[in-house]
């Protein structure tokens, strides 16, 4: 079993890295890039039957994301939550 966690910056939180990448794409000639936001994907392999969605959510809240500045979503075994 696998959990895939997506951590993204909350709306309204400045992302200077995303801005730098946007500007780089722009200077490379990729017109029309409005905004770039950089986040993280965390892949967690789980032993079957040990951890359910509630536990994965707890992992996200307590460690994987800082909910002051980040949002998270996750999928279990490829199923979008």
């Amino acid at each position, binding site marked *: 079993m696998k959990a895939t966690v997506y951590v993204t910056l909350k709306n309204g*939180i*400045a992302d*200077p890295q995303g801005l*730098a990448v946007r500007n780089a794409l722009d200077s490379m000639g990729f017109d029309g890039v409005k905004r770039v936001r950089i986040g993280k994907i965390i892949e967690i392999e789980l032993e079957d039957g040990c951890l359910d969605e509630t536990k994965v959510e707890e992992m996200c809240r307590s*460690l994987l994301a*800082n909910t002051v*500045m980040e949002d998270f979503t996750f999928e279990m075994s490829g199923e979008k939550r």
Partner: protein
Amino acid sequence: MVFPGSNCDLDAYHAVIEAGEEASYVWHMEKSLEGFDAVILPGGFSYGDYLRCGAIARFSPIMASVREMAESGRPVLGICNGFQILTEAGLLPGVLLRNRDLKFICKNVFLRVESTASPFTKALESRSVLKIPVAHGDGNYFVDGETLWSLEENGQVIFRYCSADGEVAPQFNPNGSVSNIAGVSNARGNVLGMMPHPERVCEEITGGTDGLLLFKSMISFLKGGMAGELVNS
């Protein structure tokens, strides 16, 4: 406190000695802070800044005792990475984001003392200006508007980035921190987090002694000293 990846622990130790008190190193795997009057979480790169700065260190075994110390009202100072650990632990509000200009900034800055309600500024003069270096890549302090309002209202903003003569303006803000904030305390005032490094300016040979005032103030607080007593010394 010493976490794996701390690199300002020796400086912090010597700052306390220089200020005239005893100090000991405590490894993060320890569980007790019994016998200590105050704790300093030093700068560095605990756990290599993996995941987020301070995110893993805050689960170190010693952190339960740091929390107890904070709740008991004794002085807790987080410098740079120590500040990041305290925000991750929820002992201070807000977060430290990547610097506005993405660069690691290492230079002297000026700080204005905004509040003398913390043990670390109690003996200083309100609105005085200190010259202290910063050295960080993730020091862009952020809180939402509502929290910022309550910090201002409660006098929890302790230091702001300013000019040499104490003017607070955007051009003196090195990293994009909201409202030029360089240091904040908890509501009670005993827990302080700051991005600049006072421990690096405690002897003339390292470029100044303004940082020593914070450690002297903390010691004065612990000994029941008078507010403002370092002003004319």
